[in-house]
């Protein structure tokens, strides 16, 4: 058994194809992103080494920093909304009739492509014929806003479909976590006279702290690299008011042909995502993880 199961050739045969694939498609490119970031390069003519110039320019690039701000705004908002999702999941997990159906319905938007969602919401936000302004007009609003063309409200308008898309995902994760808490623990607390509110805040939420950590990472990192919906709905506009890190990188590289500069942004994005993950994990690290299953 031992001998059969430690056959080097078979192990190589099973693991190497996948390993080569992720090295070629994931790891080699991130190393190259860092390397290209040191170059002046338009994608066609030969690269010229310019050291950290791109990064120095990046630090002074106001458009870049405003895109960073927008990304972080999305990250903060997404994290705050986790509390709402957790509350919904808490209610759903409390033996509500039809809980299963509810969480499935909530999940539907997450399964659709960002392009379809973006196109649908473009129609919803359409300034003259969209359903939203239609509704406002029937309520007597005279001056209906142009949701995606107004720099003051465009970020908020983009955040709504993002919420709509991902709500079900987080509710599902929290629901599954709450459901995996053994009933005996809750029963014991009830016998000790704890109110439903106390049980929720003092017992259920702390018990799923590991899952909460994971969802915070997902929400923050997901927001920092958000791209598809914004690219389709506003393309970063009007005048950069909804530009985020990934869209700014895309514009610089594939529209402006500044591949070196784009790579510097890409590398920055990578670092920020990794650092954010690390920081959140450190900040929320619990000394002893709770074992109950």
């Amino acid at each position: 058994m031992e001998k059969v199961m430690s056959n080097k050739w078979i192990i190589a045969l099973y693991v190497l194809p996948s390993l080569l694939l992720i090295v070629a498609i994931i790891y080699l490119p991130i190393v190259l992103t860092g390397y290209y970031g040191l170059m002046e390069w338009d994608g066609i003519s030969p690269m010229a080494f310019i050291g950290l110039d791109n990064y120095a320019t990046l630090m002074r690039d106001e458009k870049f920093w405003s895109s960073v701000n927008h990304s972080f705004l999305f990250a903060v908002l997404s994290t705050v909304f986790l509390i709402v999702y957790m509350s919904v999941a808490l209610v759903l997990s409390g033996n509500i009739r039809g809980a299963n159906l509810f969480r499935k319905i909530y999940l539907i938007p997450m399964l659709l492509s960002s392009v379809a969602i973006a196109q649908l919401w473009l129609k919803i936000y359409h300034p003259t014929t969209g359903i939203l302004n239609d509704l406002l007009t029937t309520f007597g609003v005279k001056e209906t806003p142009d949701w995606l063309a107004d720099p003051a409200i465009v970020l908020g308008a983009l955040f709504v479909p993002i919420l709509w898309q991902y709500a079900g995902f987080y509710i599902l994760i929290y629901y599954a976590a709450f459901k995996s808490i053994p009933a005996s623990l809750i029963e014991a607390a009830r016998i000790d006279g704890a109110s439903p509110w106390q049980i929720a805040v003092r017992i259920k939420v702390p018990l799923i702290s590991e899952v909460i950590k994971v969802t915070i990472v997902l929400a923050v990192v997901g927001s920092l690299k958000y791209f598809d919906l914004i690219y389709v709905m506003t393309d970063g506009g009007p005048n950069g008011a909804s530009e985020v890190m990934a869209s700014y990188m895309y514009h610089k590289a594939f529209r402006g042909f500044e591949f070196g500069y784009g790579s510097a942004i890409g590398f920055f994005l990578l670092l920020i995502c990794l650092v954010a993950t690390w920081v959140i994990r450190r900040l929320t690290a619990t000394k002893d993880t709770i074992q109950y299953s």
Partner: protein
Amino acid sequence: MTTAETAIKRRKNPASRSIGGGIVYGLLYVVLILASVLQILPLVWLFFFSLKNSQEVFELPPFALPSKPRWENYESVWSQGNISKYFFNSVWITVVSVILTILLASLVTFAMTRMRWKLRPFVLGLFMVGMMIPVHSTLIPLFNLFQKLHLTDNQANLVLSYTAFNLPITIMILLGFYYALPREVEEAAVMDGCGVNRVFFQIVLPMTASVIVTAAIINMIYNWNEFIFVNTFISSDHLKTLTVGVQNFVGQYTTNWGAVGATLMISILPILLAFLLLSNRIVEGIAAGSVKG
């Protein structure tokens, strides 16, 4: 997850025991129903305007169907332009990538959980960290890499990218299941003189059928909806997939909302259908794929 859910027996809801509790329960219910209506309403609206002509879209109330639903919108959209082409591109790219990912991930997971070798923790780490890398940071080097290999504007680059980026999460979903598989069966098989390949293909792989279905669905949803790789790596119109194709196609129609609606409905129907048939698997897969991170 599901076993835990069924293990918790349904109890009479404690909140419904008193009148005050009944009101709270009722209010919560109203909120839950309202939220699910909000989650589906935009899709219902999309479906309704896909059955109208432009005049009806603007004149009829948003949630009114025309007296005669215009199914011909679907027909004309399907036969015009490249929608059917995009559709079948999406189908084959999704199917091939899913099969490749599942096969490679199964081989890796088998070697990780069943075979003995020194570099195992390191290699597993490489696969798991791959999950945290934002695809945008790899975009410029990948584009350049594919260009050098003469693979831009070739759908093979999509299959390779989808497979590489889906391997980590697929391996993660499979890992838990593999750890729980009993070893006795394969030990007996090895005693009887089975080689590793036969143990894997004839014994272990069939035993993992259920988790493979779950992982395959998650992969399918991801690949079907993928946007940025197709948008960046594919320039010929006839090679595009549905997400990007739809984006360009819809862009031509600024006024024909019926056509836009029908196009978007066609692009999301396969996923909605999969959801109706396999919602339990989808819910299970999404929960499994996220919580363990």
